[in-house]
C-alpha cells in the first residue's frame, strides 16, 4: 500500500469525527465517513495550501459542496493545523459558536460557505476561471454528494466547466449511493454517472472510494489531464469504518447512543490495528 501511513492515520480522524459529532450532539456522520479519504488526500497530500499560505493567491482552492459533511472537514482542517480540534469539540453547535454544521468562511482555511446543495461546483468553476484569467497554476477541488447531483445548478456548472476547458478543476462525487430518504437509485435514478459526466465533456475517473491508493492515482490523472475538467466518481460506503453505520441510510445524520459510540469506537480501533499490521 502506497499510502499506508495516511491509511493508518485515517482511523484517528474517523475517531475525531465521531467525537466532534458526540460533542456537538449533531452532524452528518454517514457522509463524513464516506468522503474522508478524498478529503484527507487533498489536504494531506495533493493540495498546495497550508495555514501559512491560506491567503496566498497561488494556493489551491477547495470547496465542500456537500457542506453537511462538515465534521469530517473540521477533523481534516484541525489535523492540518488550520483549526484547533479541542476548541471545535468544546464549541461545535454551541450558542454563538463559529463552528456550525456547514462550512463557515469566517474560519481559517474555509474559502466559501455552503450548506444548500448545488452551490460548490458553480463557485469552483468561477475560481478555476479566475486562475486561467490570471495565468496562475493553482488547482480547484470540490466534493459533491451523489444525492446532490439532482440539483440542476450542478449541471449548469458542468456545462460551463467543459465549455471553458477548465483542466485546473477537479470535482469528486462521493458516490455512496445513499441519501436521506433511501438509495439514490430509488429517490432519483442517476446511473450511469460515468456516461452522464462524459456526455458533459468531462474526463471521468471512476474508482473505489474506500481505497486511498486508487483515489490518490485518480487525483494524479486529474492533474495531468489537459483541456477538460476531471470528475472522480468515488464509489464509497456511507458510514465507512464501522458495521454499526455502514450502508445504512438512517446514519445520514444520526447521533450515536452511548452504546453505539463505544461499538463504533471499538471498530475504529480495530481498523487502525489491522492497518498497522497490514503489509
Amino acid at each position, binding site marked *: 500500500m502506497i499510502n499506508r501511513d495516511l491509511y493508518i492515520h485515517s482511523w484517528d480522524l474517523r475517531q475525531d469525527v465521531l467525537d466532534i459529532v458526540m460533542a456537538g450532539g449533531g452532524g452528518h456522520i454517514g457522509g463524513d465517513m464516506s468522503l474522508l479519504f478524498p478529503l484527507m488526500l487533498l489536504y494531506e497530500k495533493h493540495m498546495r495550501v497550508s495555514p501559512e499560505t491560506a491567503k496566498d*493567491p497561488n494556493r489551491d*482552492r477547495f470547496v465542500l459542496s456537500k457542506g453537511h459533511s462538515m465534521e469530517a472537514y473540521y477533523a481534516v482542517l484541525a489535523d492540518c493545523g488550520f483549526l484547533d480540534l479541542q476548541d471545535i469539540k468544546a464549541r461545535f453547535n454551541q450558542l454563538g459558536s463559529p463552528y456550525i454544521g456547514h462550512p463557515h*468562511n469566517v474560519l481559517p482555511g474555509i*474559502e*466559501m*460557505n*455552503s*450548506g*444548500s446543495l*448545488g*452551490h460548490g*461546483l*458553480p*463557485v*469552483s*468553476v*468561477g*475560481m*478555476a*476561471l*479566475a*486562475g486561467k*484569467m*490570471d495565468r496562475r497554476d493553482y488547482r480547484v477541488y470540490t466534493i459533491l454528494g451523489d444525492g446532490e447531483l439532482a440539483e*440542476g*445548478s450542478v449541471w*449548469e*456548472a458542468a*456545462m*460551463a466547466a467543459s*465549455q471553458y476547458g477548465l483542466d485546473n478543476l477537479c470535482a469528486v462525487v462521493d458516490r455512496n449511493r445513499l441519501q436521506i430518504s433511501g438509495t439514490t437509485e430509488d429517490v432519483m435514478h442517476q446511473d450511469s454517472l460515468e456516461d452522464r459526466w462524459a456526455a458533459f465533456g468531462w474526463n471521468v475517473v471512476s474508482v473505489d472510494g474506500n481505497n486511498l491508493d486508487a483515489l490518490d492515482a485518480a487525483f494524479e490523472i486529474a492533474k495531468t489531464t489537459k483541456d477538460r475538467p476531471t470528475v472522480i466518481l468515488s464509489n464509497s460506503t456511507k458510514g465507512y469504518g464501522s458495521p454499526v453505520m455502514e450502508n445504512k441510510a438512517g446514519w445520514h445524520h444520526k447521533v450515536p447512543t452511548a452504546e453505539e459510540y463505544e461499538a463504533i469506537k471499538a471498530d475504529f480501533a480495530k481498523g487502525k490495528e489491522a492497518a498497522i499490521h497490514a503489509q
Partner: protein
Amino acid sequence: MPNKIPNRQAICETLMAHAKTDRDIVVLCSDSRGSASMTPFFNAYPEQSVEVGIAEQDLIGIAAGLASCGKKPFAFSPASFVSTRSYEQCKVDVAYSNTNVKIVGISGGVSYGALGMSHHSAQDIAAMSAIPNMRVYLPSDRHQTKHLIEALLQDTQGAYIRVGRNPVEDIYTEENCPFEMDKATVLREGGDVLLVACGEMVRPALDAAGLLAEKGIQATVLDMYCVKPLDTQTLLRYAEKCKAVVSVEEHAPTGGLGSMVAQAVSEHCPRRVKCLSLPDAPVVTGTSAQVFEYYHLTPTGIAASAEALL
C-alpha cells in the same frame, strides 16, 4: 432633446472606461449581453468577459468564485430572473460568503411591458433587501448610474443594482450630479409633503412636485437610489419638516421602498405615509409607460395622492 441613453448603457460605458486599467473587472452575462448593453464590453475585453449561457444560478455562483479569487465581477441578467432564479446564490454565494459580486438586474420592474409577469421584477427590492449583507440600489438616471458604478468599483462588498430597459429623462447633468454613496440626493425642498422615490419613479416624483407647487403645495423630493442601506438620516430629517410622506416605486406594494420608508417614519417621527407602487397582482398588459399611467405612477397621479394626504 430627450435622452436616448438607457442606464444599462451608462453602466457599460463606465465599466469599459475602467476595465482597461483594472484587469480584475469581469463582466458575466447569461445570454443577455445584448439586453444588458454589454456587447461593446464583450467585444473590447473578451478576456474579461464570461458567457454562462441561459443559466442564472451558474451566473451568480461563477461570479462568486471569481470574486473569491480577487476579481471584481459584474453579473448581468434580467432583474426578474436574477432576483428570483438566482436568489439562493445571491444569498449564500454572495451575501453570506461575503464575496464582491455586483449583481445587475437589467430590464427591471415592468420594463418588458407586455411580455407578462414572468418577465417583470416587481419583487426584487423586497427579495434582495431581506438578505443580510446585501445592498440594493436603483439609480434614477444615466449620470447617477455612472457615479454609482464608480463608487461600487471602489468597494469590496456585494450589491444588487436594478436598472430599467428604456432611456429615462435626465434628472442630473454631467456637470451637476451631486452624489454621495448611500446618501439620498435632495432634489427639491419644501415643507408640506415629502416625496421619496427610487429608480425610474424619481422623474415623475420630481415633476409631481412641480405640479404641486402650482397649487401652492411645497414638496421635498428625495432620490433614494440607495434603498438598502436606506438613508434614514436624510429621510427622517425631511419627514420631520413635512406633514405627510409619499413613497413612489416600480415594485409590488410589500417589502419595497414604501415598506422601508413607512417603517422608519412610523418608528421615529410618525406621519401619514402613502405608498405608491404597482399592485399586488400581475400588472395590466401594456408598455411600461402605459402601465405607469394605468396605476397613476405619473406626475399627475403622484401629485393627486400627495394633495389628498394634506
